[in-house]
Protein backbone atom coordinates (compact mmCIF):
# COMPACT_ATOMS: atom_id res chain seq x y z
CA UNK A 1 0.00 0.00 0.00
CA UNK A 2 1.16 3.48 -0.94
CA UNK A 3 0.59 6.26 1.56
CA UNK A 4 1.46 9.85 0.67
CA UNK A 5 1.12 12.42 3.46
CA UNK A 6 1.35 16.19 3.06
CA UNK A 7 3.98 15.89 0.30
CA UNK A 8 5.74 19.10 -0.69
CA UNK A 9 8.42 19.15 -3.38
CA UNK A 10 10.46 21.77 -5.21
CA UNK A 11 12.60 21.98 -8.31
CA UNK A 12 15.24 24.72 -8.59
CA UNK A 13 13.75 26.29 -5.48
CA UNK A 14 10.25 26.49 -6.97
CA UNK A 15 7.51 24.66 -5.08
CA UNK A 16 5.47 22.42 -7.36
CA UNK A 17 3.80 20.01 -4.95
CA UNK A 18 2.07 21.86 -2.13
CA UNK A 19 0.75 19.18 0.19
CA UNK A 20 -0.38 15.97 -1.54
CA UNK A 21 -2.31 13.36 0.44
CA UNK A 22 -3.07 10.09 -1.31
CA UNK A 23 -3.61 6.47 -0.29
CA UNK A 24 -3.47 3.71 -2.90
CA UNK A 25 -4.47 0.23 -1.70
CA UNK A 26 -3.45 -3.02 -3.40
CA UNK A 27 -5.44 -3.65 -6.56
CA UNK A 28 -6.74 -0.09 -6.84
CA UNK A 29 -6.49 2.02 -9.96
CA UNK A 30 -6.32 5.75 -9.34
CA UNK A 31 -6.63 8.28 -12.10
CA UNK A 32 -4.83 11.56 -11.61
CA UNK A 33 -6.15 14.32 -13.82
CA UNK A 34 -5.28 17.94 -14.19
CA UNK A 35 -4.05 20.55 -16.60
CA UNK A 36 -0.45 21.07 -17.70
CA UNK A 37 1.69 22.42 -14.89
CA UNK A 38 -0.62 21.15 -12.13
CA UNK A 39 2.14 18.89 -10.77
CA UNK A 40 1.05 15.47 -12.08
CA UNK A 41 4.40 14.56 -13.65
CA UNK A 42 6.26 16.06 -10.71
CA UNK A 43 4.41 13.72 -8.40
CA UNK A 44 5.39 10.73 -10.53
CA UNK A 45 9.02 11.90 -10.70
CA UNK A 46 9.18 12.46 -6.94
CA UNK A 47 7.71 9.02 -6.25
CA UNK A 48 10.29 7.44 -8.59
CA UNK A 49 13.12 9.39 -6.93
CA UNK A 50 14.19 11.79 -9.65
CA UNK A 51 17.27 13.59 -8.25
CA UNK A 52 16.25 16.98 -9.69
CA UNK A 53 13.38 17.29 -7.18
CA UNK A 54 13.71 18.03 -3.49
CA UNK A 55 11.10 16.89 -1.01
CA UNK A 56 10.73 19.68 1.53
CA UNK A 57 7.94 18.27 3.68
CA UNK A 58 5.79 15.21 4.13
CA UNK A 59 6.26 11.47 3.83
CA UNK A 60 5.69 8.58 1.46
CA UNK A 61 5.56 4.98 2.65
CA UNK A 62 5.23 1.94 0.43
CA UNK A 63 4.39 -1.41 2.01
CA UNK A 64 5.38 0.12 5.34
CA UNK A 65 8.82 1.26 4.13
CA UNK A 66 10.03 4.85 3.80
CA UNK A 67 10.03 5.26 0.02
CA UNK A 68 11.73 8.65 0.08
CA UNK A 69 14.78 7.18 1.84
CA UNK A 70 15.44 4.75 -1.02
CA UNK A 71 17.51 5.46 -4.17
CA UNK A 72 15.51 5.12 -7.41
CA UNK A 73 16.82 1.60 -8.12
CA UNK A 74 15.66 0.34 -4.73
CA UNK A 75 12.18 1.81 -5.26
CA UNK A 76 12.16 -0.15 -8.52
CA UNK A 77 13.18 -3.34 -6.73
CA UNK A 78 10.40 -2.74 -4.22
CA UNK A 79 7.89 -2.89 -7.07
CA UNK A 80 7.48 0.71 -8.24
CA UNK A 81 7.40 1.17 -11.99
CA UNK A 82 7.16 4.47 -13.82
CA UNK A 83 6.02 4.43 -17.41
CA UNK A 84 7.71 7.59 -18.71
CA UNK A 85 5.81 10.26 -20.54
CA UNK A 86 8.88 10.60 -22.75
CA UNK A 87 10.88 7.38 -22.68
CA UNK A 88 14.60 8.09 -22.98
CA UNK A 89 16.67 6.97 -25.94
CA UNK A 90 19.95 5.31 -24.96
CA UNK A 91 22.10 4.82 -28.07
CA UNK A 92 24.56 1.95 -27.83
CA UNK A 93 22.76 0.08 -25.03
CA UNK A 94 20.79 -2.79 -26.53
CA UNK A 95 17.32 -3.59 -25.19
CA UNK A 96 18.54 -7.09 -24.37
CA UNK A 97 21.49 -5.91 -22.27
CA UNK A 98 19.39 -3.21 -20.65
CA UNK A 99 16.59 -5.60 -19.68
CA UNK A 100 19.04 -8.26 -18.51
CA UNK A 101 20.81 -5.75 -16.26
CA UNK A 102 17.48 -4.51 -14.87
CA UNK A 103 15.97 -7.92 -14.27
CA UNK A 104 19.10 -9.42 -12.74
CA UNK A 105 19.51 -6.40 -10.46
CA UNK A 106 16.01 -7.01 -9.14
CA UNK A 107 16.68 -10.74 -8.73
CA UNK A 108 19.86 -9.96 -6.83
CA UNK A 109 17.89 -7.65 -4.53
CA UNK A 110 15.45 -10.50 -3.96
CA UNK A 111 18.30 -12.90 -3.21
CA UNK A 112 17.82 -14.83 -6.44
CA UNK A 113 20.45 -16.04 -8.91
CA UNK A 114 20.68 -14.23 -12.27
CA UNK A 115 18.44 -15.74 -14.93
CA UNK A 116 20.17 -18.12 -17.37
CA UNK A 117 20.58 -16.68 -20.87
CA UNK A 118 18.10 -19.09 -22.46
CA UNK A 119 15.44 -18.55 -19.78
CA UNK A 120 15.90 -14.80 -20.03
CA UNK A 121 15.46 -14.76 -23.80
CA UNK A 122 12.39 -16.98 -23.53
CA UNK A 123 10.89 -14.55 -21.01
CA UNK A 124 11.69 -11.63 -23.34
CA UNK A 125 9.90 -13.44 -26.18
CA UNK A 126 6.81 -14.18 -24.12
CA UNK A 127 6.46 -10.70 -22.69
CA UNK A 128 7.14 -9.02 -25.99
CA UNK A 129 4.04 -10.64 -27.44
CA UNK A 130 1.80 -9.08 -24.81
CA UNK A 131 2.38 -5.63 -26.29
CA UNK A 132 2.97 -6.89 -29.85
CA UNK A 133 6.52 -5.52 -29.80
CA UNK A 134 8.54 -6.51 -32.84
CA UNK A 135 11.58 -8.71 -32.29
CA UNK A 136 13.68 -6.22 -34.27
CA UNK A 137 12.88 -3.51 -31.74
CA UNK A 138 14.06 -5.73 -28.92
CA UNK A 139 17.43 -6.14 -30.61
CA UNK A 140 17.92 -2.41 -31.14
CA UNK A 141 19.28 0.21 -28.74
CA UNK A 142 16.89 1.29 -25.99
CA UNK A 143 14.14 3.41 -27.58
CA UNK A 144 16.53 4.61 -30.30
CA UNK A 145 14.61 5.46 -33.44
CA UNK A 146 11.37 4.05 -31.97
CA UNK A 147 8.13 5.76 -32.99
CA UNK A 148 6.04 7.37 -30.24
CA UNK A 149 3.75 4.34 -30.11
CA UNK A 150 6.67 1.90 -30.06
CA UNK A 151 8.23 3.75 -27.14
CA UNK A 152 5.02 3.47 -25.10
CA UNK A 153 4.67 -0.21 -25.96
CA UNK A 154 8.26 -0.66 -24.93
CA UNK A 155 7.42 0.85 -21.54
CA UNK A 156 4.65 -1.68 -20.99
CA UNK A 157 6.96 -4.44 -22.21
CA UNK A 158 9.49 -3.45 -19.54
CA UNK A 159 6.69 -3.45 -17.00
CA UNK A 160 5.84 -6.99 -18.13
CA UNK A 161 9.44 -8.04 -17.56
CA UNK A 162 9.78 -6.47 -14.12
CA UNK A 163 6.31 -7.39 -12.75
CA UNK A 164 5.86 -4.33 -10.54
CA UNK A 165 3.20 -3.97 -7.84
CA UNK A 166 2.69 -0.23 -8.24
CA UNK A 167 2.61 1.25 -11.73
CA UNK A 168 2.61 4.92 -12.47
CA UNK A 169 1.53 5.55 -16.04
CA UNK A 170 2.54 9.11 -16.87
CA UNK A 171 0.47 10.20 -19.85
CA UNK A 172 0.92 6.83 -21.47
CA UNK A 173 -1.85 7.84 -23.89
CA UNK A 174 -0.07 10.92 -25.24
CA UNK A 175 1.02 10.59 -28.83
CA UNK A 176 -0.83 7.31 -29.37
CA UNK A 177 -3.39 6.58 -32.03
CA UNK A 178 -6.46 4.53 -31.11
CA UNK A 179 -4.93 1.17 -32.10
CA UNK A 180 -1.71 1.79 -30.23
CA UNK A 181 -3.67 2.98 -27.21
CA UNK A 182 -5.71 -0.22 -27.24
CA UNK A 183 -2.59 -2.41 -27.48
CA UNK A 184 -0.88 -0.58 -24.64
CA UNK A 185 -3.95 -0.53 -22.40
CA UNK A 186 -4.85 -4.15 -23.06
CA UNK A 187 -1.24 -5.09 -22.40
CA UNK A 188 -1.45 -3.36 -19.07
CA UNK A 189 -4.75 -5.03 -18.20
CA UNK A 190 -3.39 -8.49 -19.04
CA UNK A 191 -0.42 -7.91 -16.76
CA UNK A 192 -2.48 -6.71 -13.81
CA UNK A 193 -3.02 -9.01 -10.91
CA UNK A 194 -5.45 -8.50 -8.05
CA UNK A 195 -2.52 -7.02 -6.11
CA UNK A 196 -1.29 -4.59 -8.78
CA UNK A 197 -2.19 -1.00 -8.13
CA UNK A 198 -1.72 1.92 -10.46
CA UNK A 199 -1.73 5.68 -10.69
CA UNK A 200 -2.81 6.67 -14.17
CA UNK A 201 -1.93 10.23 -15.11
CA UNK A 202 -3.88 11.61 -18.01
CA UNK A 203 -5.58 14.66 -19.46
CA UNK A 204 -8.33 12.72 -21.11
CA UNK A 205 -11.06 10.21 -20.48
CA UNK A 206 -9.87 8.22 -23.52
CA UNK A 207 -7.31 6.06 -21.68
CA UNK A 208 -9.76 5.52 -18.84
CA UNK A 209 -12.16 3.80 -21.24
CA UNK A 210 -9.57 1.01 -21.37
CA UNK A 211 -8.02 1.20 -17.92
CA UNK A 212 -10.96 1.70 -15.63
CA UNK A 213 -10.16 3.67 -12.50
CA UNK A 214 -11.65 3.03 -9.08
CA UNK A 215 -10.94 6.55 -7.91
CA UNK A 216 -10.34 9.79 -9.80
CA UNK A 217 -8.40 12.75 -8.41
CA UNK A 218 -8.04 16.24 -9.78
CA UNK A 219 -4.76 18.03 -9.19
CA UNK A 220 -4.65 21.83 -9.36
CA UNK A 221 -1.60 23.88 -8.46
CA UNK A 222 0.16 21.13 -6.53
CA UNK A 223 -2.83 19.98 -4.49
CA UNK A 224 -5.50 17.32 -4.91
CA UNK A 225 -8.67 19.41 -4.91
CA UNK A 226 -11.27 16.81 -5.70
CA UNK A 227 -11.56 13.05 -5.32
CA UNK A 228 -14.50 10.99 -6.56
CA UNK A 229 -15.46 7.88 -8.51
CA UNK A 230 -15.05 7.28 -12.27
CA UNK A 231 -17.96 9.63 -13.01
CA UNK A 232 -15.63 12.56 -12.23
CA UNK A 233 -13.51 11.72 -15.27
CA UNK A 234 -16.61 11.76 -17.48
CA UNK A 235 -17.63 15.09 -16.08
CA UNK A 236 -14.18 16.56 -16.80
CA UNK A 237 -14.31 15.17 -20.33
CA UNK A 238 -17.58 17.05 -20.90
CA UNK A 239 -17.02 20.24 -18.90
CA UNK A 240 -13.25 20.70 -18.58
CA UNK A 241 -11.50 21.76 -15.40
CA UNK A 242 -12.78 25.30 -14.99
CA UNK A 243 -15.85 24.40 -12.97
CA UNK A 244 -13.61 22.63 -10.45
CA UNK A 245 -11.23 25.59 -10.29
CA UNK A 246 -14.15 27.90 -9.60
CA UNK A 247 -15.43 25.67 -6.84
CA UNK A 248 -12.15 25.57 -4.87
Amino acid at each position, binding site marked *: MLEIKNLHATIDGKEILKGIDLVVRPGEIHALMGQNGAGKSTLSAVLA*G*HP*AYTVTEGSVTYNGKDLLAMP*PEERSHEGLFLSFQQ*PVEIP*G*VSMVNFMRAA*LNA*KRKYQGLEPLEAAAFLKLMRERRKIVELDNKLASRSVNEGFSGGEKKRNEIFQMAMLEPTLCILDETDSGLDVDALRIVAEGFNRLRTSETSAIVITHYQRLLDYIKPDIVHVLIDGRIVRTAGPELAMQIEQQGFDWIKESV
Partner: protein
Amino acid sequence: MKQYLDFFRAERQRIDAGSSPLLNQRRDEAAAALERLGFPSQRVERYRYTDVAAAFAPNYGIQLQTAEKVVTDLHPSASLYYAQLADIQADAITALNTMLVQDVTIIHVAAGERKQHPVQITNTLSATAPLMQNRRLLIVAEAGAELDVIMTDKARGQQDFLTTQVTEIVVGEGARVGFYDIEDTHEHCHRFHQVFARVASGGKLTHSVFTLAGGLSRNQTDVALVGQGADANLLGCAITIGQQHVDNNTLIEHISPACTSHELYKYVVDGSSTGAFAGRILVREGAQQTVSEERNANLVCTNQARMWTQPMLEIYADDVQCSHGSTVGQMADDALFYMRQRGINEAEARTLLKQAFASEVLGALPLEPLRQRLQAMVEHRFRSCEDCQLCKPHD
Protein backbone atom coordinates in the same frame (compact mmCIF):
# COMPACT_ATOMS: atom_id res chain seq x y z
CA MET B 1 67.21 17.20 -23.48
CA LYS B 2 70.90 17.59 -22.71
CA GLN B 3 70.94 14.30 -20.80
CA TYR B 4 69.96 12.42 -23.96
CA LEU B 5 72.56 14.14 -26.15
CA ASP B 6 75.22 13.56 -23.48
CA PHE B 7 74.26 9.92 -23.23
CA PHE B 8 74.37 9.56 -27.01
CA ARG B 9 77.84 11.12 -27.26
CA ALA B 10 79.21 9.13 -24.34
CA GLU B 11 77.74 5.82 -25.47
CA ARG B 12 78.01 6.24 -29.23
CA GLN B 13 80.31 3.26 -29.67
CA ARG B 14 78.11 0.93 -27.67
CA ILE B 15 75.01 2.16 -29.43
CA ASP B 16 76.58 1.58 -32.87
CA ALA B 17 78.02 -1.77 -31.90
CA GLY B 18 74.60 -3.02 -30.85
CA SER B 19 72.90 -1.91 -34.03
CA SER B 20 73.14 -2.08 -37.79
CA PRO B 21 74.88 0.33 -40.22
CA LEU B 22 71.57 1.44 -41.70
CA LEU B 23 70.43 2.79 -38.36
CA ASN B 24 73.86 4.04 -37.35
CA GLN B 25 74.27 6.19 -40.44
CA ARG B 26 71.26 8.31 -39.52
CA ARG B 27 72.27 9.08 -35.92
CA ASP B 28 74.39 12.14 -36.52
CA GLU B 29 71.77 14.07 -38.46
CA ALA B 30 69.17 13.05 -35.88
CA ALA B 31 71.35 14.29 -33.02
CA ALA B 32 71.98 17.56 -34.82
CA ALA B 33 68.26 18.00 -35.45
CA LEU B 34 67.41 17.26 -31.81
CA GLU B 35 69.99 19.75 -30.61
CA ARG B 36 68.66 22.36 -33.00
CA LEU B 37 64.94 21.72 -32.32
CA GLY B 38 65.06 21.08 -28.59
CA PHE B 39 61.99 19.55 -26.98
CA PRO B 40 58.92 21.39 -28.23
CA SER B 41 57.40 23.81 -25.75
CA GLN B 42 53.64 23.99 -25.37
CA ARG B 43 53.70 27.04 -27.61
CA VAL B 44 54.45 24.74 -30.53
CA GLU B 45 51.05 24.13 -32.10
CA ARG B 46 51.16 20.35 -32.29
CA TYR B 47 52.45 20.02 -28.74
CA ARG B 48 50.26 22.53 -26.95
CA TYR B 49 48.45 19.87 -24.91
CA THR B 50 51.46 17.88 -23.67
CA ASP B 51 54.48 18.99 -21.67
CA VAL B 52 57.20 17.04 -23.48
CA ALA B 53 60.15 18.43 -21.54
CA ALA B 54 58.58 17.40 -18.23
CA ALA B 55 57.94 13.88 -19.50
CA PHE B 56 61.58 13.48 -20.59
CA ALA B 57 63.09 15.22 -17.55
CA PRO B 58 63.41 12.26 -15.12
CA ASN B 59 66.51 10.10 -15.21
CA TYR B 60 65.63 6.92 -16.97
CA GLY B 61 68.07 4.14 -17.62
CA ILE B 62 68.27 3.81 -21.39
CA GLN B 63 68.02 0.30 -22.67
CA LEU B 64 70.93 -0.72 -24.93
CA GLN B 65 71.40 -4.03 -26.61
CA THR B 66 74.71 -5.77 -26.92
CA ALA B 67 76.64 -6.51 -30.09
CA GLU B 68 76.05 -10.29 -29.98
CA LYS B 69 72.34 -9.88 -30.74
CA VAL B 70 72.76 -7.67 -33.76
CA VAL B 71 71.21 -8.62 -37.06
CA THR B 72 73.08 -6.77 -39.76
CA ASP B 73 71.52 -8.26 -42.86
CA LEU B 74 68.25 -6.33 -42.67
CA HIS B 75 65.58 -6.96 -45.25
CA PRO B 76 66.37 -4.97 -48.43
CA SER B 77 63.21 -2.90 -48.00
CA ALA B 78 64.74 -1.39 -44.87
CA SER B 79 67.34 0.57 -46.80
CA LEU B 80 64.62 1.84 -49.12
CA TYR B 81 62.19 2.96 -46.47
CA TYR B 82 63.91 3.38 -43.10
CA ALA B 83 63.63 6.98 -41.88
CA GLN B 84 62.18 8.11 -45.20
CA LEU B 85 58.64 9.04 -44.08
CA ALA B 86 59.62 9.95 -40.55
CA ASP B 87 60.55 13.58 -40.48
CA ILE B 88 63.73 13.80 -38.42
CA GLN B 89 64.30 17.46 -39.22
CA ALA B 90 60.89 18.68 -38.07
CA ASP B 91 60.08 16.58 -35.02
CA ALA B 92 62.24 16.33 -31.90
CA ILE B 93 60.83 13.04 -30.66
CA THR B 94 61.35 11.42 -34.04
CA ALA B 95 64.91 12.80 -34.00
CA LEU B 96 65.53 11.50 -30.48
CA ASN B 97 64.22 8.08 -31.42
CA THR B 98 66.36 7.95 -34.57
CA MET B 99 69.42 9.00 -32.57
CA LEU B 100 69.07 6.22 -30.00
CA VAL B 101 67.14 3.38 -31.58
CA GLN B 102 69.08 0.18 -32.17
CA ASP B 103 66.45 -2.15 -33.43
CA VAL B 104 63.85 -1.96 -36.15
CA THR B 105 60.98 -4.39 -36.58
CA ILE B 106 60.34 -4.78 -40.29
CA ILE B 107 57.13 -6.25 -41.63
CA HIS B 108 57.29 -6.51 -45.40
CA VAL B 109 54.64 -8.01 -47.64
CA ALA B 110 55.57 -8.62 -51.26
CA ALA B 111 53.46 -7.35 -54.13
CA GLY B 112 50.14 -9.13 -54.47
CA GLU B 113 50.58 -11.18 -51.31
CA ARG B 114 47.61 -11.27 -48.96
CA LYS B 115 48.29 -12.24 -45.38
CA GLN B 116 45.40 -14.32 -44.07
CA HIS B 117 46.19 -13.72 -40.41
CA PRO B 118 47.23 -10.55 -38.63
CA VAL B 119 50.77 -10.12 -37.38
CA GLN B 120 50.66 -9.55 -33.65
CA ILE B 121 53.32 -7.64 -31.74
CA THR B 122 53.21 -7.53 -27.96
CA ASN B 123 55.55 -5.13 -26.21
CA THR B 124 55.89 -5.94 -22.54
CA LEU B 125 57.73 -3.42 -20.40
CA SER B 126 59.54 -4.92 -17.44
CA ALA B 127 62.39 -3.45 -15.39
CA THR B 128 63.73 -3.05 -11.87
CA ALA B 129 64.58 0.64 -12.29
CA PRO B 130 63.06 3.48 -14.34
CA LEU B 131 63.58 2.58 -17.97
CA MET B 132 63.51 4.32 -21.32
CA GLN B 133 62.88 2.27 -24.41
CA ASN B 134 63.12 3.42 -28.03
CA ARG B 135 61.30 1.34 -30.59
CA ARG B 136 61.00 1.38 -34.33
CA LEU B 137 58.52 -0.29 -36.62
CA LEU B 138 58.50 -0.35 -40.40
CA ILE B 139 55.51 -1.77 -42.24
CA VAL B 140 55.74 -2.08 -46.02
CA ALA B 141 52.92 -3.44 -48.17
CA GLU B 142 53.98 -3.53 -51.79
CA ALA B 143 51.43 -3.05 -54.59
CA GLY B 144 48.28 -5.09 -54.09
CA ALA B 145 49.50 -6.62 -50.80
CA GLU B 146 47.25 -6.95 -47.77
CA LEU B 147 48.23 -7.03 -44.14
CA ASP B 148 46.93 -6.41 -40.64
CA VAL B 149 49.22 -5.66 -37.71
CA ILE B 150 48.05 -5.64 -34.10
CA MET B 151 50.39 -4.09 -31.58
CA THR B 152 49.73 -4.26 -27.86
CA ASP B 153 51.66 -2.43 -25.16
CA LYS B 154 51.74 -4.07 -21.75
CA ALA B 155 53.73 -3.35 -18.62
CA ARG B 156 54.73 -5.64 -15.79
CA GLY B 157 55.31 -4.17 -12.32
CA GLN B 158 54.76 -0.61 -11.18
CA GLN B 159 58.08 0.80 -12.49
CA ASP B 160 58.34 4.13 -14.35
CA PHE B 161 58.68 3.69 -18.08
CA LEU B 162 59.26 6.08 -20.95
CA THR B 163 58.78 4.77 -24.46
CA THR B 164 59.33 6.40 -27.78
CA GLN B 165 58.22 4.69 -30.94
CA VAL B 166 58.40 5.72 -34.54
CA THR B 167 56.26 3.72 -36.93
CA GLU B 168 56.53 4.10 -40.69
CA ILE B 169 53.82 2.60 -42.85
CA VAL B 170 54.16 2.35 -46.63
CA VAL B 171 50.95 1.38 -48.40
CA GLY B 172 51.66 0.58 -52.03
CA GLU B 173 49.34 0.92 -55.01
CA GLY B 174 46.09 -0.90 -54.35
CA ALA B 175 47.53 -2.34 -51.14
CA ARG B 176 45.67 -2.56 -47.83
CA VAL B 177 47.18 -2.16 -44.38
CA GLY B 178 45.46 -2.27 -41.01
CA PHE B 179 47.48 -1.13 -38.02
CA TYR B 180 45.80 -1.57 -34.65
CA ASP B 181 47.60 -0.05 -31.71
CA ILE B 182 46.40 -1.00 -28.21
CA GLU B 183 47.92 0.53 -25.11
CA ASP B 184 47.06 -1.31 -21.92
CA THR B 185 49.79 -0.40 -19.43
CA HIS B 186 49.55 1.57 -16.18
CA GLU B 187 49.78 5.06 -14.72
CA HIS B 188 53.60 5.08 -14.53
CA CYS B 189 54.04 4.58 -18.27
CA HIS B 190 54.80 7.48 -20.57
CA ARG B 191 54.52 6.83 -24.24
CA PHE B 192 55.26 8.90 -27.34
CA HIS B 193 54.26 7.21 -30.56
CA GLN B 194 54.87 8.92 -33.90
CA VAL B 195 53.22 7.27 -36.88
CA PHE B 196 54.06 8.31 -40.44
CA ALA B 197 52.04 6.70 -43.22
CA ARG B 198 52.00 7.14 -46.95
CA VAL B 199 49.22 5.70 -49.08
CA ALA B 200 49.71 5.25 -52.82
CA SER B 201 47.02 5.26 -55.47
CA GLY B 202 44.07 3.01 -54.63
CA GLY B 203 45.70 1.96 -51.36
CA LYS B 204 43.80 1.70 -48.09
CA LEU B 205 45.01 2.32 -44.58
CA THR B 206 43.09 1.63 -41.39
CA HIS B 207 44.76 2.92 -38.28
CA SER B 208 43.28 2.57 -34.83
CA VAL B 209 44.65 3.50 -31.45
CA PHE B 210 42.99 2.29 -28.26
CA THR B 211 44.25 3.71 -24.99
CA LEU B 212 42.77 1.46 -22.32
CA ALA B 213 45.26 2.25 -19.58
CA GLY B 214 48.42 4.31 -19.30
CA GLY B 215 49.99 7.33 -17.63
CA LEU B 216 50.88 9.79 -20.34
CA SER B 217 50.16 8.85 -23.93
CA ARG B 218 50.91 10.99 -26.90
CA ASN B 219 50.09 9.54 -30.27
CA GLN B 220 50.89 11.53 -33.36
CA THR B 221 49.63 10.12 -36.61
CA ASP B 222 50.51 11.66 -39.96
CA VAL B 223 48.94 10.20 -43.06
CA ALA B 224 49.75 11.38 -46.58
CA LEU B 225 47.31 10.33 -49.29
CA VAL B 226 49.67 10.67 -52.21
CA GLY B 227 48.05 8.62 -54.97
CA GLN B 228 44.69 9.02 -56.64
CA GLY B 229 41.84 7.30 -54.81
CA ALA B 230 43.87 6.52 -51.69
CA ASP B 231 41.83 5.98 -48.54
CA ALA B 232 42.51 6.42 -44.84
CA ASN B 233 40.33 5.36 -41.95
CA LEU B 234 41.51 6.61 -38.56
CA LEU B 235 39.89 5.37 -35.38
CA GLY B 236 40.71 6.19 -31.81
CA CYS B 237 39.31 5.42 -28.40
CA ALA B 238 40.75 6.68 -25.12
CA ILE B 239 39.50 5.64 -21.70
CA THR B 240 41.17 7.73 -19.03
CA ILE B 241 41.12 7.82 -15.25
CA GLY B 242 43.06 9.21 -12.28
CA GLN B 243 45.77 11.63 -13.42
CA GLN B 244 46.07 10.02 -16.84
CA HIS B 245 46.76 12.14 -19.91
CA VAL B 246 46.02 11.13 -23.49
CA ASP B 247 46.87 13.38 -26.41
CA ASN B 248 46.06 12.23 -29.93
CA ASN B 249 47.32 14.49 -32.68
CA THR B 250 46.57 13.63 -36.29
CA LEU B 251 47.29 15.07 -39.69
CA ILE B 252 45.67 13.72 -42.83
CA GLU B 253 47.03 15.25 -45.98
CA HIS B 254 45.01 14.94 -49.16
CA ILE B 255 47.56 15.40 -51.91
CA SER B 256 46.03 13.62 -54.93
CA PRO B 257 42.51 13.79 -56.34
CA ALA B 258 39.63 11.52 -55.30
CA CYS B 259 41.12 10.42 -52.00
CA THR B 260 38.87 9.66 -49.05
CA SER B 261 39.45 9.88 -45.32
CA HIS B 262 37.29 9.08 -42.32
CA GLU B 263 38.32 9.84 -38.80
CA LEU B 264 36.51 9.05 -35.55
CA TYR B 265 38.02 9.53 -32.10
CA LYS B 266 36.06 9.05 -28.90
CA TYR B 267 37.19 9.69 -25.35
CA VAL B 268 35.68 8.70 -22.02
CA VAL B 269 37.44 11.01 -19.60
CA ASP B 270 37.02 10.16 -15.93
CA GLY B 271 38.61 10.99 -12.57
CA SER B 272 41.00 13.96 -12.80
CA SER B 273 42.38 12.90 -16.16
CA THR B 274 42.84 15.01 -19.25
CA GLY B 275 42.21 14.15 -22.85
CA ALA B 276 43.28 16.10 -25.91
CA PHE B 277 42.46 15.63 -29.54
CA ALA B 278 43.76 17.75 -32.38
CA GLY B 279 43.00 16.53 -35.86
CA ARG B 280 44.04 18.46 -38.91
CA ILE B 281 42.75 17.66 -42.38
CA LEU B 282 44.74 19.37 -45.06
CA VAL B 283 43.37 19.30 -48.60
CA ARG B 284 46.14 20.39 -50.94
CA GLU B 285 45.66 22.33 -54.12
CA GLY B 286 44.71 19.91 -56.87
CA ALA B 287 43.21 17.34 -54.50
CA GLN B 288 39.82 17.62 -56.18
CA GLN B 289 36.94 15.25 -55.37
CA THR B 290 38.30 14.82 -51.89
CA VAL B 291 35.83 13.26 -49.47
CA SER B 292 36.77 13.73 -45.86
CA GLU B 293 34.89 13.33 -42.61
CA GLU B 294 36.33 13.97 -39.17
CA ARG B 295 34.57 13.60 -35.84
CA ASN B 296 35.69 13.71 -32.24
CA ALA B 297 33.16 12.97 -29.49
CA ASN B 298 33.91 13.03 -25.82
CA LEU B 299 32.22 11.99 -22.63
CA VAL B 300 33.51 13.86 -19.60
CA CYS B 301 32.47 11.95 -16.49
CA THR B 302 33.51 14.25 -13.63
CA ASN B 303 33.95 17.92 -12.86
CA GLN B 304 37.68 17.33 -12.41
CA ALA B 305 38.26 15.73 -15.79
CA ARG B 306 39.26 17.92 -18.74
CA MET B 307 38.96 17.50 -22.48
CA TRP B 308 40.56 19.65 -25.17
CA THR B 309 39.37 19.21 -28.70
CA GLN B 310 40.51 20.87 -31.87
CA PRO B 311 39.25 19.60 -35.21
CA MET B 312 40.86 21.49 -38.09
CA LEU B 313 40.05 21.59 -41.76
CA GLU B 314 42.14 23.43 -44.32
CA ILE B 315 41.06 23.29 -47.92
CA TYR B 316 42.98 24.54 -50.94
CA ALA B 317 40.87 22.80 -53.60
CA ASP B 318 37.38 23.83 -54.69
CA ASP B 319 35.62 20.57 -55.52
CA VAL B 320 35.61 18.76 -52.19
CA GLN B 321 33.19 17.26 -49.70
CA CYS B 322 34.52 17.72 -46.18
CA SER B 323 33.10 17.83 -42.70
CA HIS B 324 34.62 18.12 -39.28
CA GLY B 325 33.26 18.51 -35.80
CA SER B 326 33.53 17.68 -32.18
CA THR B 327 31.30 17.33 -29.14
CA VAL B 328 32.03 17.35 -25.44
CA GLY B 329 29.27 16.15 -23.19
CA GLN B 330 28.59 14.82 -19.75
CA MET B 331 26.80 11.67 -18.73
CA ALA B 332 23.14 12.03 -19.75
CA ASP B 333 21.18 12.53 -16.52
CA ASP B 334 17.88 11.54 -18.09
CA ALA B 335 19.33 8.25 -19.32
CA LEU B 336 20.87 7.58 -15.90
CA PHE B 337 17.54 8.17 -14.17
CA TYR B 338 15.68 6.03 -16.69
CA MET B 339 18.04 3.13 -16.05
CA ARG B 340 17.90 3.56 -12.28
CA GLN B 341 14.09 3.58 -12.41
CA ARG B 342 14.36 0.16 -14.01
CA GLY B 343 16.47 -1.06 -11.11
CA ILE B 344 19.97 -0.65 -12.52
CA ASN B 345 22.16 0.95 -9.87
CA GLU B 346 24.00 4.16 -10.62
CA ALA B 347 27.48 2.63 -10.98
CA GLU B 348 26.19 -0.01 -13.37
CA ALA B 349 24.16 2.55 -15.31
CA ARG B 350 27.28 4.70 -15.71
CA THR B 351 29.26 1.69 -16.88
CA LEU B 352 26.63 0.81 -19.46
CA LEU B 353 26.54 4.38 -20.74
CA LYS B 354 30.34 4.57 -21.02
CA GLN B 355 30.46 1.26 -22.86
CA ALA B 356 27.69 2.40 -25.14
CA PHE B 357 29.64 5.55 -25.92
CA ALA B 358 32.80 3.65 -26.80
CA SER B 359 30.95 0.99 -28.77
CA GLU B 360 30.70 3.17 -31.87
CA VAL B 361 34.48 3.03 -32.37
CA LEU B 362 34.56 -0.69 -31.70
CA GLY B 363 31.77 -1.17 -34.22
CA ALA B 364 33.84 0.59 -36.87
CA LEU B 365 36.77 -1.84 -36.54
CA PRO B 366 36.97 -3.99 -39.65
CA LEU B 367 38.61 -6.99 -37.95
CA GLU B 368 35.86 -9.04 -36.33
CA PRO B 369 37.90 -11.16 -33.87
CA LEU B 370 39.81 -8.06 -32.75
CA ARG B 371 36.53 -6.21 -32.30
CA GLN B 372 35.23 -8.95 -30.00
CA ARG B 373 38.46 -9.06 -28.04
CA LEU B 374 38.54 -5.30 -27.63
CA GLN B 375 34.88 -5.26 -26.63
CA ALA B 376 35.78 -7.56 -23.76
CA MET B 377 38.88 -5.51 -22.87
CA VAL B 378 36.89 -2.28 -22.85
CA GLU B 379 34.20 -3.83 -20.68
CA HIS B 380 36.81 -5.19 -18.30
CA ARG B 381 38.44 -1.78 -18.19
CA PHE B 382 35.20 -0.07 -17.23
CA ARG B 383 34.20 -2.74 -14.75
CA SER B 384 37.45 -3.00 -12.84
CA CYS B 385 37.41 0.77 -12.93
CA GLU B 386 34.19 0.87 -10.95
CA ASP B 387 35.94 -0.88 -8.11
CA CYS B 388 38.69 1.70 -7.81
CA GLN B 389 38.28 4.78 -5.65
CA LEU B 390 39.36 7.17 -8.40
CA CYS B 391 36.41 6.15 -10.52
CA LYS B 392 33.64 6.70 -8.02
CA PRO B 393 31.12 9.19 -9.32
CA HIS B 394 31.86 12.76 -8.20
CA ASP B 395 29.01 15.11 -7.42
